[in-house]
């Protein structure tokens, strides 16, 4: 119902006018609820030069519930879980902050902004967050290593 027209419209908009550093594809012609995004690392960040595959799953209640994000390419980042899910959950991606008019494009912009500026106070990986805060050099080093190892 509400979802379909909305999703089609968003998909059309995002494909004709994608946010900076993002491209979108649909892995399956018949399922409009799973999107694949390829996100390039912001140029002034430690992630510059890398490309990350991110799976976006739209719940059946979408847009009344937020989409779920999963990094399919590993990333060393305090706000992304360091497991096979590679989940990110902050800001508008949280159920209590999500508002139905929010768009996938907004979400992708947020993801890039968080890649450029991690938010250690909202971290899911506390040890990475601690390192980010207290030992930035080491953090940068590992993050770049991961970019070279996984995201190229």
């Amino acid at each position: 119902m509400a979802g379909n027209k909305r999703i089609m419209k968003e998909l059309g908009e995002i494909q004709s006018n994608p946010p900076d550093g993002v491209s979108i594809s649909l892995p399956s012609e018949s399922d409009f609820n799973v999107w694949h995004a390829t996100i390039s690392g912001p140029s002034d960040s430690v992630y510059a030069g890398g490309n990350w595959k991110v799976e976006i799953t739209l719940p059946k209640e979408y847009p009344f519930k937020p989409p779920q994000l999963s990094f399919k390419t590993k990333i060393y980042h305090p706000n992304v879980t360091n497991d096979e899910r590679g989940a990110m959950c902050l800001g508008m991606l949280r159920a209590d902050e999500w508002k139905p008019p929010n768009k996938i494009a907004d979400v992708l912009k947020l993801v890039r902004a968080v890649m450029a500026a991690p938010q250690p106070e909202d971290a899911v990986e506390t040890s990475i967050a601690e390192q980010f805060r207290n030992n930035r050099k080491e953090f940068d080093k590992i993050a770049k290593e991961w970019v070279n190892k996984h995201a190229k």
Partner: protein
Amino acid sequence: MPAAFVGDEAAEPVTKTPPSTRKRKLVDSITTSATSQPPATIELPKRKASKTTTASVHDANADAEQAALPATPQTLSSDKPMDSDDDLNSVASSGMLGEAMDDSSVDFDAADSDDDGLEDFQDDESAFESQPKDLRPAKKAFEVDFNVYSPGDIQHQQDRQVEEVATLLEQPAEQTAILLRFMSWNKERLIEQYMDNQEEVLDKAGLGANMSSNPPRLEAIDGFTCDICCEDEPGLQSFAMNCGHRFCVDCYRQYLGQKIREEGEAARIKCPGDGCNKVMDAKSLDLLVTSDLTDRYHELLMRTYVDDKENLKWCPAPNCVYAVECGVKRRDLTRTVPTVNCDCKHAFCFGCTLADHQPCPCALVRKWLKKCEDDSETANWISANTKECPKCGSTIEKNGGCNHMTCRKCRHEFCWMCMGLWSEHGTSWYNCNRFEEKSGTDARDAQASSRKSLERYLHYYNRYANHEQSAKLDKDIFHKTEKKMQLLQSSSGMSWIEVQFLEAASQALQQCRQTLKWTYAFAYYLARNNQTEIFEDNQKDLEMAVENLSEMFEKNTDQLAGLKVDMMDKTSYCMRRRVILLDDTAQRLKEEGWTFNVDLK
């Protein structure tokens, strides 16, 4: 509150006693009285004769103890109007919840002064007879004032407060309700801030400009496209609050359904508009919330009200709908253990909502439960029952009698007793007499202190766990006995009411064991001094009383009828020992007279 709750200044409200008070009375009557014919073995002192009785309940045994106990002064002023303190303490009497209690902590010192009414009642009260309404038991040091409210009462309180504040602020009731919820029902703070800066308060609460001139309604606007579903057909019904974020009715309703049903939100649902913090007001919600959601919605509003109020808590018992009001604050919890009794019969701590844990303060309960759960005790066991190889550090458990240990891993040879090198032992094979040698003393010291602390913990834990277990067994036996009670009725020709002593005994056992259980957690954290001994004496007396009663429960049904009087005596004795223990402990806690070996904060 019904008018009957409003107490007259000096006179006892005769028309109706709040249910909670009635219940407390009943509990107390069990604690303070035995039967309609006071048993011969226990003498109840006539309170009328001596106004200076230190503890309102005591028996021959307690007299001796009283000599040892520091006297607990009790102000019994007969010229004081009866119950004046009670009126102060009981918020219910004002009917305006929150006002009387919000700013004052529980009045610790006023607790004892309303005793005058119960002198006669002590002597001839029966636990199985209904209480005369004009008699009220004295409040003990371990008791707190509380009231039990039904959902209807709570709704009524909310309405009343909204109404009152609405008149003051000259705002419609819906807006006032939002403002109050926004301020977590703190009337004073709301009024103050509102008078200070009306615009800001309205804005922060998500109300913005006045709504009364422009009530919420659905509209069909030409050229409107819903930003959520992207529908744009002509005539599409849409809604916006005065923040201007307009969405179609279907999307609005689905949004609210999501919030109310799945996220359990009610009082602080925001406008669906991106980044908009405007809280949805009751009128708009009334317009949009579909009938299948209204019940849930109002239930949630009620929940927030109780959750917001520091002096209200939901009874944690499963399926219980009551809320309990009590004036004890978080900061008081180091000096009092506020057990309240819900109308559903569940006794719980108002401070932490766990089941009644008197006499142990909340902070110690938390520490204790954590300790019992903690794996650190496993570690403690290991360190008490095993030793580390002095060379490679492998954990070794001794499995034979010989003290000559050879580490299986590094082949190091040492003496289990002194932990020193075996080669230094010379020929004294089975006798370790090298007590002062350095190579072994450090290892031994660490070992000994760990073992000692484990033993101490286990001492208290075993007793704690035992009472918990015994309470369950007592209950099982009672359930069996309950069936026998019916047999007893037919075989002995006793009436239903006459076999109720079994139920009373069972309840007493449950309650006393619950208390005893927590005395052990309490004692574990108690630093040893003179007071500990008094405490332990009280504990011992209660324990003996409980075990005596518990034993009677195991008798055959045919013997039970003959034991009735004895059982009733023992029941009342148990309850009195419990009161003595709790009263003394609570009194000292209030005076901050206990020394604990941990921080209570």
